[in-house]
């Protein structure tokens, strides 16, 4: 099993275990399985040992290193780490060492966490399988022939394989929740603005949000309490402190109204076992005293289409900064424009170019209103439909990923097939709401009903902006009701 962050921190603070011993156990797990899984772009073992020794020295002095004392954490490689290479799994940033730390990196470090490395991702977080990495794919620790999901596949796999107790990822259209679902761990997309994005390399700025991975709902709550709250370095940061989540975690769901979103649960393409898991979770919540019923949020059906206009449009603008001038790769050319174009051609991978092209087209003269403008109006409709649903319900339930983990290469030839993985997660990003995925049972994949182990299913809880405290209570109740097989997170052996 993955070593729980809450117990590590309690043990380290009480002097029952040293931060260094905890770290060495995780480094040993990395040594044993990382060559198969490839969760990391970089393992920072030396820095981690130095940091763990500092934590132990602080304990020896009688200081309290903080709520994450000695907790090994993996960081998605699109979070800036001062002096430590940060690549976004792209050739265009290979070898770049940021001159500053992301706010979330600083916060986990100040809370006593020990960073073990930078995790693999789909290049610039564009993808749902971590196969779009310039440095090779990450594999699912539960079945090495299958993907871990994406784009934060390395962070999800690192927690599932016991390489780190917790991890940070980023979620633009499901990039924390979908890999969490496929790897059998907890993954959270916080409310837009709840967590600082200073030092998160931008993909689509009206959608991106940093979020935690953990092996339990309580560890995810602990990590979100540490990283959340206002940051003056991020102008989209909500001017409020991080919500208190752990205090109310065990309050249960008595009296809560919970809606099961028809469009994100009963739709074609959602594996029957996944739909059944949502039903079983809902029944367990009913047994625990909640009132559950079906609800329609009709415009969420158009979320995917709107997302694939809005996100690439924003990406085409954000990625204009990779021009061979200030950092990263440069391929020389006859003049500046030629140098820019050659650098970007050589430095970006296939999917990134596809999205830049799509976004540039959607924003270009003559198409702006029909594509980008219409997608923005559909976004308003999705927000209105959610508002209507949240008048009747405290939280909503849905599938996270339409299927359990698929095989490497199964969806790489057709971009649209790959995009469909995010159909249940995208609406929360468009609305700026909170959502989380909780492991709930396992199923055999539909593409290979025999000859492979049963693979994790995730159930998604959606909440309105700022709804994290209730969302986590519901998540905790689902975790308590989950079949024993859900707890296959951990060593994966």
């Amino acid at each position, binding site marked *: 099993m993955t070593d729980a962050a809450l117990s590590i921190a309690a043990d380290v603070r009480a002097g029952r275990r040293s931060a260094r011993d905890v770290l060495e156990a995780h480094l040993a797990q990395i040594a044993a399985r990382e060559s198969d899984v490839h969760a990391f772009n970089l393992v920072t073992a030396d820095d981690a040992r130095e940091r763990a020794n500092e934590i132990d020295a602080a304990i020896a002095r009688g200081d309290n290193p903080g709520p994450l004392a000695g907790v090994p954490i993996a960081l998605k490689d699109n979070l800036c780490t001062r002096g430590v290479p940060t690549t976004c799994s792209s050739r265009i940033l290979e070898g770049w060492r940021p001159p500053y730390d992301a706010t979330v990196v600083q916060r986990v470090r100040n809370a006593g966490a020990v960073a073990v490395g930078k995790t693999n991702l789909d290049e610039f977080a564009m993808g749902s399988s971590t196969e779009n990495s310039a440095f090779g794919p990450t594999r699912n620790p539960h079945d090495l022939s299958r993907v871990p999901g994406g784009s934060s596949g390395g962070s999800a796999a690192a927690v599932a394989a016991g390489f780190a107790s917790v991890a940070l990822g980023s979620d633009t259209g499901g990039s924390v929740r979908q890999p969490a679902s496929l790897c059998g761990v907890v993954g959270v997309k916080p409310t837009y603005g709840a967590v600082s994005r200073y030092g998160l390399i931008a993909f689509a700025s*009206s959608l991106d949000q940093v979020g935690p991975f953990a092996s339990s709902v309580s560890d995810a709550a602990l990590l979100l309490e540490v990283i959340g709250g206002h940051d003056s370095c991020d102008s*989209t940061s909500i001017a409020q402190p991080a919500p208190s989540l752990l205090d109310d975690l065990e309050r249960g769901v008595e009296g809560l109204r919970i809606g099961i979103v028809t469009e994100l649960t009963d739709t074609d393409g959602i594996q029957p076992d996944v739909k059944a898991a949502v039903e079983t979770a809902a029944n367990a919540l009913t047994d625990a005293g909640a009132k559950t019923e079906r609800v329609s949020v009709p415009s969420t059906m158009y979320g995917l289409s709107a997302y694939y206009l809005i996100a690439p449009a924003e990406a085409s603008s954000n990625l204009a900064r990779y021009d061979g001038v200030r950092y990263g790769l440069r391929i020389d050319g006859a*003049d500046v424009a030629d140098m820019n174009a050659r650098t970007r051609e050589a430095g970006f991978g296939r999917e990134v170019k596809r999205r830049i*092209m799509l976004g*540039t*087209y959607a924003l270009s003269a003559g198409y702006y209103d029909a594509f980008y403008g219409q997608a923005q109006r559909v976004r*308003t409709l999705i927000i209105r439909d959610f508002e209507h649903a949240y008048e009747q319900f405290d939280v909503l339930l849905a599938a996270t990923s339409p299927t359990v983990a698929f095989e490497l290469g199964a969806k790489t030839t057709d971009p649209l097939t790959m995009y469909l993985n995010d159909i249940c997660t995208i609406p929360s990003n468009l609305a700026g709401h909170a959502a989380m995925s909780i492991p709930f049972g396992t199923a055999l994949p539909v593409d290979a009903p025999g000859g492979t182990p049963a693979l994790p299913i995730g159930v998604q809880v959606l909440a309105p902006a700022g709804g994290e405290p209730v969302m986590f209570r519901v998540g905790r109740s689902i975790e308590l009701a989950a079949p024993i097989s859900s707890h296959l997170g951990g060593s994966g052996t």
Partner: protein
Amino acid sequence: MSDHSITRAEVEHVARLARLALTDDELDSLTTELGAILEHAAQVSALDTAGVPPTAHPLPLVNVFRVDATRPSLPRDEVLAAAPAAEGGRFRVPRILGEAP
């Protein structure tokens, strides 16, 4: 929005706008792929949005100002050390189009 096909000439034009020196093979495959993606994305046109305002951003935030006080910026040498080329405390680039060499 009735015709969502995109021509190879349009793809070439967009590549120029996006400053991507795409190969012939890439132009061919992107013409097909972008056509298919745009056809799916055009489903947004099925919704009646007359009178619906656009949402550019999920938060109702406007004009977030920081305190007007000096604070340290990133160390210049460290920043320039990460650049492909620097000279005299500045980023160095090839000549700008139309300028004398």
